[in-house]
C-alpha cells in the first residue's frame, strides 16, 4: 500500500508542477489588450492590423499553442502536395527514416559487438576507431554524407545509422564480455557447440546490456532525425519545425517540440517494457 501511496503523491506533485508551469507561462506571455489600431489607417493595415496573421513577436500563450495543436491534430493526414502535409504524415516519414537507419545499425552493431565482446584482441584493435567516431555530432556527419552519398534522404538515414550505432555496439560488447565465466565453463564442460553457446548462453546473459544499448540508441536516433530533417527539408517532423520557424510561428514550433517529446517518450517506454522482459535475477 505504501508504494501506491507514494505513486499517488508523485502524480499529484507532477500535476501541480504542470499547473504552476502553465500558469506562469500564461501570466508571463499575456499581453494587455492594447488600444485597437485604427482600421482605416493604411500603415496599420500593412503592419497586419485586422489581418489574419498578427506579428509573431512575443512568446505565444499556452492557449495559443493549444489552439494550434487542436487544429493540427484534427486533420493529421491531409496532403497538399510535397511541401504541405498533415502532421501525421510528417511523423510517419520521420519514424520511417529512424526505423530504417536504426535497423541497419542493429544489423551491424549486434554481430560486431558480439565479435568485439568475445575477442579482447579485436576489442583493443577497434577501440581507438570507435572512440574517435563515437563523439561526432550528427550535424558534422551531414555535409560528409551529402557530399558522398549525393542523396539527401539517404544521407539522413545514414546519419541515423552512424549515430545510433555506437551505444549499441559498445553495450553489446560490454554485455558479451561480462558474461559470467562459470556459465561459459559449464557450457564448455557440456560440450555445447559454439553457435549454441552464443545463442543459448551468451545472448540471454548479455540481453539486458544489449537492450540498454538499443534503448540509448533509439533516444539518439530520435534526437538526430529532427536535426537532420531541419537541415535537409523534405517531409518529416524536423522539416515541419523548420518551415514554421521560417514563418516565425513559435506556437507551431512549440507544438512540434511537444510532439517530438511525446513520441520520444513513447519510444523509450516501449524499450523500457522490452528491458523488463529480458532482465533476469541471478
Amino acid at each position: 500500500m505504501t508504494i501506491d501511496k507514494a505513486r499517488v503523491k508523485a502524480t499529484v506533485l507532477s500535476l501541480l508542477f504542470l499547473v504552476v508551469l502553465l500558469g506562469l507561462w500564461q501570466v508571463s506571455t499575456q499581453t494587455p489588450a492594447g488600444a485597437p489600431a485604427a482600421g482605416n489607417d493604411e500603415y496599420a493595415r500593412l503592419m497586419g492590423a485586422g489581418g489574419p496573421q498578427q506579428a509573431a513577436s512575443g512568446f505565444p500563450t499556452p492557449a495559443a499553442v493549444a489552439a494550434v495543436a487542436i487544429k493540427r491534430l484534427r486533420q493529421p493526414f491531409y496532403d497538399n502536395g510535397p511541401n504541405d502535409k498533415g502532421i501525421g504524415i510528417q511523423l510517419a516519414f520521420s519514424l520511417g527514416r529512424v526505423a530504417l537507419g536504426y535497423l541497419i545499425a542493429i544489423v551491424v552493431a549486434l554481430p560486431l559487438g558480439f565479435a568485439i565482446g568475445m575477442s579482447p584482441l579485436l576489442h583493443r584493435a577497434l577501440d581507438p576507431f570507435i572512440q574517435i567516431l563515437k563523439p561526432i555530432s550528427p550535424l558534422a556527419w551531414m555535409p560528409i554524407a551529402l557530399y558522398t552519398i549525393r542523396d539527401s534522404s539517404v544521407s539522413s538515414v545514414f546519419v541515423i545509422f552512424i549515430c545510433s550505432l555506437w551505444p549499441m555496439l559498445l553495450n553489446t560488447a560490454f554485455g558479451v564480455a561480462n558474461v559470467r565465466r562459470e556459465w561459459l565453463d559449464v557450457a564448455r564442460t557440456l560440450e555445447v557447440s559454439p553457435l549454441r553457446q552464443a545463442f543459448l548462453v551468451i545472448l540471454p546473459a548479455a540481453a539486458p546490456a544489449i537492450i540498454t544499448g538499443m534503448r540509448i540508441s533509439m533516444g539518439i536516433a530520435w534526437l538526430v532525425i529532427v536535426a537532420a530533417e531541419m537541415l535537409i527539408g523534405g517531409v518529416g517532423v524536423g522539416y515541419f519545425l523548420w518551415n514554421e520557424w521560417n514563418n516565425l510561428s513559435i506556437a507551431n514550433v512549440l507544438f512540434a517540440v511537444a510532439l517530438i517529446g511525446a513520441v520520444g517518450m513513447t519510444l523509450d517506454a516501449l524499450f523500457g517494457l522490452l528491458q523488463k522482459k529480458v532482465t533476469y535475477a541471478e
Partner: protein
Amino acid sequence: MIAPAGPLSGCACGRHSRAAACDAQTLSDDIVEAAALRGLFPRASARRRFVAAVGATVAAEAIALVFPLGSLRAMAMDDPLGKLERASLKIGFVPINCATPIIMADPMGFYAREGLKVELAKTAGWALIRDRAASGELDASHFLAPMPLAMSMGLGAQRQAMHVASIQNTNGQAITLSLRHRNNRDPRRWKGFRFAIPFEQSMHNFLLRYYLAEHGLDPDRDVQLRVTPPAEMIANLLDGDIDGFLGPEPFNQRAVFEKVGFIHILTRDIWDGHPCCAFGVSDRFVRQNPKSFTALYRAILKATAAANRPENRADIARAIAPEQYLNQPEIVIRQGLTGRFADGLGNVVDVPDRSGFDATPWYSMATWMLTQMKRWGYVKGDVDYRQLAERVFMLTDARRLMGELRLPVNASASGYPSFKIMGRTFDPTQPEAYIRSFAIRRT
C-alpha cells in the same frame, strides 16, 4: 565474351559499346557543329580555311566558346512531336519572393501545358540547393545568380558546368536595420556593425559590400558579415545580435511587420534592375534531356513574364503565401511584390519597381558578378570573363525562346549592356580596369 571492348574494337570516342551508336551520336553532333560553323562563317571558303587552319577538334571547341553548343544541339533535336526524355522533374526552390516564377508556373499550368509533371522541392538553404543540384537529385533549381558561375569555376563547390538559363527576378531586396538605428542612417558611421547575408555567392553579399565600400567602409575589416538563414536574421535582429541585414523578401518586410526593423534602402536604389536569383540547370541535364529542358525553359520564361506584369502581383502574393510555398502572411509578401509598403518608420512608401521579373540573363551581369568575386578575393588569378559569362549565361537561347513565345524581349544587339551602380558606370568590356578603379578591394 567474343572480343574485348577496347580502342580497336569499340568506337572512336570509347563511350559506346557499339561503333554504330557512336557514329550516330557523332553524326548528329557534327551536323549541329556544322550549322554553328555556317552561322559563324557564312562563306564556304572561309569556313574551310578556318577548319583547315585549326583542325576539326579545335574548331569545335572554339565554336563552343561562342555558342552554347549543348543547347543548340538540344534545339536541333527539338521536334514538336517528339517525346520528352523525362516528363517528371524535380525542381528546388528556397521559399522567398524571388522564387515566384518557378512556383507560379505550377498553379498557372505552364508546366502542365508543356507536358511536364514538376515536383517543387522546398529546400532549407543555399548550400543544400548547391549540393542537391550538383548531385543530380534536383533536375533544375532556383539559385542565387552567382552560384552557377561559382560552381562552374569550382568555387566553394565541386567544379561542375552549370548554366543560368534565365534570371528569376530583378531588384526586390533591401537593407533592413534594427529599429535602434533609426537615427543612424549614415553608413559612414556604421563601423563595427554586424550584418547578416544569406550566402557568400549571392548578389546580397556583393551589393552590401559594394554599398558599404562606396561609403568608405571595408566590408572585411570595418564590419562583420555573417551568413545566416533569413528566419534567423529576424530573430538575431530582435536579440540585437546583428545590426541589420541585406536579405531577400519577404524577410525585410517581415522584420517591419514584426516591428523589429525598418527598411533603410531598397537594393533598387543601389543598382536599378540588378539580377538576384536565377533559374539554373546543370550542363549535364541540358545535354541528356534537351527536349525536357526546352519544355521546362519555356514554362519558366512564360511564368517570369507573367510575374513581371504589375497587375498580377496581388494575385501572386495570394498564391504563394500558403504553407506549401512561402508560408508567410500574404500582406507581407504583397508589400514586397507591389512596392506599396510600410517602411517600419511610420511611412507608407510607393515604389512600383521595388521588385521586377526580367528573365534576360545578360552577359554583362555575369561579368559584374565575376568582377566582384575577384574584387573581394573569392577568385584569385586571371579570370576569363567573356568565356565564363557566355558559357554559363544562356543569353542566346533565352532571347530566341522568348522571341518564339512572343514575350517582350530586348533585342539589343550586344549581350553586354553597361550598368550604373550607385552612380558609377560599369563597362563590361573593361572588367579589370573596373576592379582597379575601387579603392577598397582585395586584389
